[in-house]
């Protein structure tokens, strides 16, 4: 038999390790949205997103850029009078939309996250220069120029190493990762 999960429960289910109160507890008081430093860049305020989730407006939520605009500063989380871990809910929404392969066109967030993961899986370390190509073009030629200027500045100051680091126990590290997500068999 199959159980029809509410969108609310689906999101709750992708918040596996977090220990906040359920989203259902939301009072719609707006403390989160009043606090959020990135709210101007969101198409819905965090409170509205919670409202949409509870009301089951899945498409509207997934089409929103709100959770991709979250900087994970956790200011909403510590202030929420209902004890909901809102920042982690935003993570959950990111996971959900990547998992379902449904997110707004032209967002850098998903691309960035996924290339970040690839990189770490391949080396065990993160390495800023490698990240650049994955997003620069998204900022258009003008962004490219800016980026180039910044980057050369950093180069000259010797703050951008030329070679990515790798951890020694990479094979075993990847076996560890394999036990959680499929990353293909060792070559």
């Amino acid at each position, binding site marked *: 038999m199959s159980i029809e999960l509410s969108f609310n429960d689906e999101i709750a289910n992708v918040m596996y390790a977090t220990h906040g109160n359920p989203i259902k507890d939301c009072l719609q008081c*707006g403390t989160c949205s009043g606090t959020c430093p990135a709210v101007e860049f969101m198409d819905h305020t965090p409170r509205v997103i919670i409202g949409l989730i509870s009301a089951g407006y899945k498409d509207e939520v997934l089409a929103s850029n709100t959770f991709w605009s979250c900087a994970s500063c956790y200011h909403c989380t510590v202030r929420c009078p209902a004890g909901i871990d809102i920042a982690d809910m935003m993570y959950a929404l990111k996971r959900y939309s990547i998992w379902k392969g449904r997110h707004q066109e032209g967002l850098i967030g998903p691309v960035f996250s996924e290339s970040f993961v690839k990189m770490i899986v391949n080396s065990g370390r993160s390495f800023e220069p490698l990240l650049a190509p994955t997003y620069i073009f998204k900022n258009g030629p003008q962004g490219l120029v800016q980026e180039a200027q910044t980057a050369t500045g950093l180069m000259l100051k010797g703050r951008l190493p030329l070679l990515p680091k790798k951890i020694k126990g990479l094979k075993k590290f990847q076996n560890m990762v394999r036990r959680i997500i499929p990353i293909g068999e060792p070559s």
Partner: protein
Amino acid sequence: MSEKIGVYVCHCGTNIAGTVDVKGVAEWAAEHLKHRGVVIGREYKFMCSSLGQELVEKDIKELGLTRVIVAACSPHLHEKTFRTACERAGLNPYLCEMVSIREQVSWVHADKAAATEKSKAVISGGVERVLHNEPLEPIRVPIHADTLVVGGGIAGIQAALEIADAGYHVCLVEREPSIGGHMAQFDKTFPTLDCSACILTPKMVDVGNHPNITLLTWSEVVKVDGFVGNFKATIRKKARYVNTDTCTGCGICWEKCPKKVVDNVYEAGLGNRKAIYTPFAQAVPRYPVIDVENCTYFKNGKCKACQIFCPTEPNSINFDQKDEMLEVQAGNIILATGYDLFDATRIPQYGYGKLPNVFTSLEFERMCNAAGPTEGKIVLRDKTTTPKSVVIVHCVGSRDENYNKYCSGICCMQSLKFAHLVMERTGAEVYNCYIDIRTPFKDYEEFYKRVLEEGGHFIRGKVAEVTDAARLPEEEGKLIVQVEDTLIGKQRRIPVDMVILSAGIEPRHDAKEVGKLFGIACGASGWYTEKHPKLDPVATMTEGIYIAGCVQGPKDIPVSVAQGAAAAARVLGKIQQGVISLEPIKASINETQCSGCRICNGLCPFNAIAFIEDDKVSSINPALCQGCGTCVAACPAGAISGTGFSDAQIIAQIDGLLLRNLEPVEA
């Protein structure tokens, strides 16, 4: 088996009969529990009807029943009914037991067979238990006619006056130098906006002059012994250093006193008083007190200005006065110790204590008060500038898991009142930032409408933060209130001159200790637990101790007054009875078995168990004992037995419920 037991099974219409084979159960009891003394098993449509009761009475008389089991609804509903029926028929009421086959069987189970089986087991348990019941007599206690009222706020004042006017003596104890409580600090009261002092002062004066009221201010209860009808309270009367027999309250002493002190209690830190002072002009009693921490004489032995200028003969200032210990007898006690204001500094993002023009509700009340530190002028911290714009923040410390989960109830109306006063007196723009506006009582919603029409702005959203960091020119030199206007889904930054934090109310910081002192319990939020949340809101689990006002939970003036009167009515009822009878469900100690280990002494929350040095055994005061039975379970010597809930009864019931009584047990 000498006992004769009658078993009565109720159909309760179809409520029980619908899911339980009532007839079958009754017959089963008569047949399979015969060897346990069941002589008759009957079923009837409605046992609680007069006919049903007569059925029982008839059998008691004609069959000479010595025990009765009624299987019907919950004992909380009809235990009294059937016990009185038995009493009418000459059987001791405590030899009748009820077992619930409605709330706990027919209503909660669907499977008829299972429900019927369970009913049998439940009845069998009752039968085994009732066999060990003993005839009991209710305990009768004489009631001392005096009453102790603790707390001189509006609730305590009301209670004291009601009882005193009825002609009985009251001792009213107040911690502060004057009665009046929080209400004395307010200027206007919602929703009628009548002046707080104008309606409170007459009542305070009545208390002061009432022949039936002994007023002990600047005093605290430190010990309570005894029990309902006969409490003995020990009260510390703190030294006033003023002789109240000669003092006329003329006020010269505090005029002359050179030492200014910031008044953090009455003026909420906004104004000053002297080292010798009465909190406010209409104080009752009018005698001042000397605040030893700040008095120059007590600090370095010089000054004595108050004494030098005191005009009375003999001089009323007495620096050698000592605290006194008084003992007060009382039949009943009313606790009306009120509330503390939520400490707004606990929410740093609201800036209270850091940003000067953020005020608490109590500060604002004082500011509005014509007799207050600003003579009723609404001004910024500089005491001169009138604000052009004000934000009132609702739910400060309330409805918030990080502070208090509950709604403080009064803040919405208080905030609306503030909004009105600000607009009326300054013409400033006023913004109320709220989560929900709660105006449930008479004329409250109408007041909300009025404020709306007066042009008050309402923003639905809990304020996120208050800052002085300007980003735009118009924000320069202002307080910026950052909040989501949830009705338009936008984050707004509102620049204003003044912010008022409508702080919630909390249980007194020492509520727990005080509760222990009087032997009553606090709920999860720290308010005292009433006997029943709906049907018995002013009584407590401890007989003879009543609660009124905010000690029981957040409430406004009208409700506090109502509760004060209600508590008084309950007390008067007890006094009128003269003698009251208590449920005889008590623990008692068998001295011959008591080893004097004293384990039980510490366990009793009502201090009902005392150790008798001479006999080296413990003994229980039946009037203090509430019958919880913890000591019974704890006694390693099995020397304590609980009437009504004895080991024998419970063990027998266990065996009965498990139907171990069916195969005859070897003698």
